[in-house]
């Protein structure tokens, strides 16, 4: 079965390509990328006015299966991802049980094969039970299919464990993804510490809680040669540290979430629990620093930190609500509207942030590119389409989005996963 994508604006950062091309897909792989391909037997997909990019990869997704299937299942998370323009998602290990062993990894992959319409790449725990004490069986999980390790949801508190993890994971060429937060400094906080936390009487999580651990991780990565990937970077000090680390040749990469480039802590004045996530929405100057770091390349990728919670779990006092928001169906539109339409970055950079760079960080050689022979994972974008976000229509099982009702310009327009058309407008 062959698919011929006609007349799209093909954007592939791995080849510095941004031009009108046709793409021929055969046997689930990219077969040709040329102007005006003719193939009378192929199924034709018209992509006039659309951007055709290597499939988008979300480096940071929380699927709640196993354990909290009422919030999300592997199948529902995959459907949500496809609707949002992603062809691959990397699921964090903080399920119940924690993905800290090959048997859990294999369970996730088996479920993904049964009902998952996008590629699922599990991320294994750094430590057993993500408890922070003893390394999990990182090599075995790698062989089982894990692409990275993380204790996300929690930091790797113990610096010695972080050192060992970076050293050990480097044998398998896997990054250690760290949720940087000194929990002593965070001190039970529920929002960013600043004027608004003072005004609202809510406990603050200071920027330094993140920044001290980002600095620590960069120091340990520099000393060990390991690859540390900073999850959901959110403060001016953190991006400055990463920028400096990169300049010195340290193997440090980082991701930012759409909410951290779109919202500030001012939003919390509503006490809406959809504004509660960790790291918290930061101050105006932090958001400006994030924008600058997206523009200058300090930030490598955009990841959703998709964290589904039920209505009941979120319909409580702000202090008692769990952290996290859903993000798979809003990420691409927010990035187009807030980063590309504003002139901050080009479409080529956007595709690098969503596809080329995540693939490179995870060492996925046949993804994040439209080179001949690569996996036929394609994301279509319609940069002109105006949308209104309606959380009630998310494919996710959860609705906890701060963006409900937002009007944005730019939208995903379809995905092809492994040569199979999942949807296309």
């Amino acid at each position, binding site marked *: 079965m062959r698919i011929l994508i006609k007349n799209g604006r093909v954007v592939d950062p791995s080849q510095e390509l941004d031009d009108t091309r046709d793409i021929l897909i055969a046997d689930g792989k990219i077969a040709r990328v040329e102007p005006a391909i003719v193939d009378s037997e192929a199924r034709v997909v018209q992509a006039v006015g659309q951007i055709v990019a290597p499939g988008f990869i979300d480096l940071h997704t929380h699927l709640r299966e196993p354990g909290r299937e009422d919030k999300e299942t592997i199948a529902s998370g995959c459907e949500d991802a496809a609707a949002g323009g992603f062809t691959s998602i990397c699921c964090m290990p903080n399920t119940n049980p924690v993905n800290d062993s090959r048997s859990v990894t294999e369970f996730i992959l088996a479920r993904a094969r049964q009902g998952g319409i996008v590629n699922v790449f599990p991320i294994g725990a750094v430590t057993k039970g993500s408890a922070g004490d003893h390394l999990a069986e990182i090599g075995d999980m790698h062989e089982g299919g894990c692409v990275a390790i993380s204790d996300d949801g929690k930091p790797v508190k113990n610096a010695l464990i972080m050192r060992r993890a970076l050293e050990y994971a480097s044998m398998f060429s896997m990054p250690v993804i760290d949720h940087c937060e000194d929990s002593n400094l965070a001190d039970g906080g529920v929002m960013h510490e600043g004027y*608004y936390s003072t005004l609202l009487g*809510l406990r603050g999580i200071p920027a330094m809680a993140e920044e001290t651990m980002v600095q620590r991780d960069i120091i340990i990565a520099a000393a060990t040669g390991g690859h540390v990937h900073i999850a959901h970077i959110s403060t001016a000090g953190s991006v400055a540290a990463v920028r400096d680390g990169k300049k010195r040749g340290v193997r440090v990469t980082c991701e930012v979430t759409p909410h951290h480039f779109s919202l500030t802590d001012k939003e919390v004045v509503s*006490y809406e629990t959809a504004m509660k996530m960790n790291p918290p929405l930061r101050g105006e100057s932090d958001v400006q620093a994030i924008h600058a770091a997206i523009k200058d390349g300090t930030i490598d990728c955009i990841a959703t930190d998709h964290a589904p919670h039920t209505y009941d779990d979120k319909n*409580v006092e702000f202090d008692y609500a769990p952290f996290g928001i859903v993000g798979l169906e809003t990420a691409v539109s927010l990035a187009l509207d807030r980063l590309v339409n504003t002139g901050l970055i080009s479409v080529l950079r956007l595709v690098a942030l969503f596809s080329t760079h995540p693939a490179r960080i995870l060492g996925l050689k046949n993804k994040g590119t439209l080179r001949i022979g690569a996996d036929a994972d394609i994301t279509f974008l319609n940069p002109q389409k105006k949308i209104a976000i309606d959380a009630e229509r998310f494919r996710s099982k959860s609705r906890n989005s701060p963006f409900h009702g937002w009007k944005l310009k730019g939208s995903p327009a379809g995905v092809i996963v492994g040569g199979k058309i999942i949807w296309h407008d």
Partner: protein
Amino acid sequence: MQLKSRHLLGIEHLDKAEIELILDTAASFKEVSTREIKKVPTLRGKTVVTLFYEVSTRTRTSFELAAKRLSADTVSISTSTSSVQKGETLVDTVRNLEAMKPDYFVVRHSCSGAALMISRISQASIVNAGDGSHEHPTQALLDAFTMRERKGDISKLRVAIIGDIRHSRVVRSNILLLRKLGADVHIAGPATLLPPGMDRLGVTVTSDIGVAIRNADVVMMLRIQQERMDKSFFPSLREFAMYYGLTRERMRLAKSDAIIMHPGPINRGVEIDHELADCDRSVILDQTENGVAVRMAVLYLLAGGNPAGEAS
């Protein structure tokens, strides 16, 4: 004139005229509590539910007496004896009480924003009786009432507020109210208990109690909680008292006719010397007395200001 909202969630939402309306109305209600028969028919047939998720003596009693003196029926629910113990959520508790058609919920909760949350799901008038470290609007109103009664025009006053600024809902409501009425406000506390951004509220911030108190017309002391010490906000109650306790000597820095206020309950010998708490410059019991009148005014005005019966 009437209040714009049917809720009192915080001083933040009131304008100067509304604050003055509440204070003026309270003045006319104060006399009721001095009568032999302490009751007016103003809120007859109305139901006031006090829903307290935190312990309280004075605020709860004050609200209940205010409601009873207006002839409202009162029901008090405290979490230690309610379905909250069975794990019922705040939303479910309120929805169930709501089904019994109360006219007011007076809410005290340890979480900031709890009163606002209830106002979004209730048809009743919500009165915030203290939400976490956020606001305690009736406390600020009774403080203002007391200041006005003792010192006159609030816009001409220099007010010093001392102690645990970080965790205090009393200080937030007081700052908002005093700034709206144009007072000159100075706050002081140890650096660990001064949260960021206070200066953006239009107050002067210092860690030197002497600087804050100097030339003050009003010295307001805040309660310090023992558990703050356990989290290393300061080394000991002894050292806290050394730097931030109100003593006769420190009080000499204030104007000679300055008054001493405290929202209570007092830690005698910590934030305030034993003798000062009871001296004639202390208006602590006036605050408590005025609380009833202010809460009567609030309940009355939230009902639209002109229910069955007149204010006096």
